[in-house]
């Protein structure tokens, strides 16, 4: 049985339609008009225990709204959610013990208290015993270097420190399911790396993780499954490597040669590949489909035609693929 299950999940927000300027505002006082915005549109999703899922989509696609529906914060307009078979709104208190939520742009720390006290309040709210709590803190300290920020007052934390403290706050009760919504937003590279490493350790321990992010580097190396949402609808749900295999077949071999390459001869020897001259002399780029020929074959062919000085193979990142999906020039099969 899946641990998280959504069926036909839909959320419609009603927005007031105000005309522009003061006139519009006054008019709105008397004749209210609203328009509906469908933020999440019939989303079906099921996540198995221990699975790590990346949930990506452009701004305003409905990622955060989905997370809020899945954690019981928002009431769906239609459709339903089950966490371990429970209803997150009706069984709010029971579900609360099983899920952990981090919103990168929000904090649950007390602004006027040291981080250690905020965490202790959460420990007591979740009824975590002291020994377990100390063990968890020690683990957070290992990867997130939490120790140094424990005595710092909430409002004095830098963004990176706040995010690390909030991560600990979201996980202090050892939830089975964790939603991470934009967990690396605004962080510098060093902190990002640390936080990403922490996600991997979570996944390795068997926690079910749903990660929402803009930064596709968060995803690569973290999860197998990719779900793409656009305009409230899931447009792809499948294997991350599969997407790469299907849509990132293209490879580019950059070569530097000792003498100019006979372009015609290359084209004749490598049908299907495309060869271009790069800006610097004696540098070329060969674009090919990795299912038609291997990089090794290309190199061998070029080496018979001239002396190679250096070469490098570029493969497109998952980021490129998803960017092309967003911009609409790549249509993924469901």
């Amino acid at each position, binding site marked *: 049985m899946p641990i998280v299950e959504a069926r036909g999940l839909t959320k419609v927000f009603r927005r007031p339609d105000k005309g522009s300027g003061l006139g519009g505002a006054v008019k709105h006082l008397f004749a209210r008009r609203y328009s509906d915005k469908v933020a999440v549109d019939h989303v079906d999703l099921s996540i198995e225990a221990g699975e790590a899922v990346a949930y990506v989509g452009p701004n305003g696609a409905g990622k955060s709204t989905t997370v809020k529906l899945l954690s019981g914060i928002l009431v769906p307009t239609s459709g339903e959610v089950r966490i371990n078979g429970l209803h997150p709104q009706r069984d709010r208190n029971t579900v609360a013990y099983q899920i952990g939520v981090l*919103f990168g742009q929000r904090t649950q720390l007390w*602004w006027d208290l040291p981080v250690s006290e905020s965490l202790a309040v959460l420990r007591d709210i979740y009824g975590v015993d002291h020994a377990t709590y100390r063990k968890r803190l020690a683990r957070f300290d290992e990867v997130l270097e939490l120790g140094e920020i424990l005595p710092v007052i909430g409002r004095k934390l830098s963004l990176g420190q706040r995010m690390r403290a909030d991560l600990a706050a979201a996980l202090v009760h050892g939830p089975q399911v964790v939603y991470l919504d*934009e967990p690396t937003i605004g962080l510098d590279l060093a902190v990002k790396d640390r936080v990403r490493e922490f996600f991997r350790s979570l996944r390795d321990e068997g926690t079910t993780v749903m990660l929402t992010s803009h930064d596709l580097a968060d995803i690569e190396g973290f999860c197998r499954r990719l779900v793409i949402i656009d305009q409230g609808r899931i447009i792809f749900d499948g294997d991350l490597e599969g997407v790469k295999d299907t849509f990132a077949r293209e490879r580019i071999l950059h070569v530097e040669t000792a003498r100019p390459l006979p372009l015609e001869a290359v084209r004749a020897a490598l049908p299907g590949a495309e060869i271009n001259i790069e800006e610097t002399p004696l540098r070329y780029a060969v674009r090919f489909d990795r299912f038609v020929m291997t990089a090794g074959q290309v190199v061998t062919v070029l080496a018979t035609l001239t002396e190679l000085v250096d070469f490098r193979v570029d493969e497109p990142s998952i980021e490129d693929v998803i960017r092309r999906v967003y911009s609409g020039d790549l249509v993924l099969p469901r």
Partner: protein
Amino acid sequence: MRGYRALARATARAALAYRFSLLLGMVAVLVQLVALLAVWHVILEQSPMNGFTWPQMRAYLLVAFAAGTVVSILGDFRMAFRILDGDVALDLVKPVDYQKARLAESLGGLWIELALISLVVGVTLAVTGGVDLPPGPGLALFAASMLILVPLKFLIVYVSTLACFWTQNFMGVQWARLAVVNLFSGALIPLVFLPGWLATVAQWSPFAGLTSTPALIFLGQVDGREALQLVAVQLGWVLVLWFGARLVWRAALRRLTVNGG
């Protein structure tokens, strides 16, 4: 229970983190107390008015001060800003009842408030002379009334803060509440000084229980059945507001949108 106790402690600590601001707030209330004492002293020096003599009014103002200070270190600012910012989303994934959690936070500051009240009342009595205590049953009823005042005040603040879900603004809500509470509770002037019909409305409103009811009982201006009735009204409002607040909360949740992030 452990979670609620932790929330109560957290509010007290957060309040103490702002000792200076706490002290300033206290000074403001004290200035108001001194001003009211001075004004009423001048008014009542020659002859009593509406049944109030100067020593009685002094006692009334002291009770009003105590009633006004209890449950004033509230988490209402934090609650309002979390609603307005949408951080309330994170309060919704905690295994605690939202309303009880906020009550626990309000109770957290109670001991600080009691300490401040004892200090101010003690000093005032030392400077201006003692007050007459009501007889035994009256004193017991006064104590009961002050006790009921704690949840009543919390609920009035809580329900009005929930209005932030609709208004998207806190200052307006807070000012409106303060204006209504000051007038209808008898905190500014005893209710008998209001026009008859307005006094009656105020008497039956939940606000009378915030100042007027305990003060009148303390002064012995009401006793026996009448006093019991006032306390019953106070208690009735606590129950109505406790369950009414739950309905408001449910409506608020349906309305919740939590923009961005």
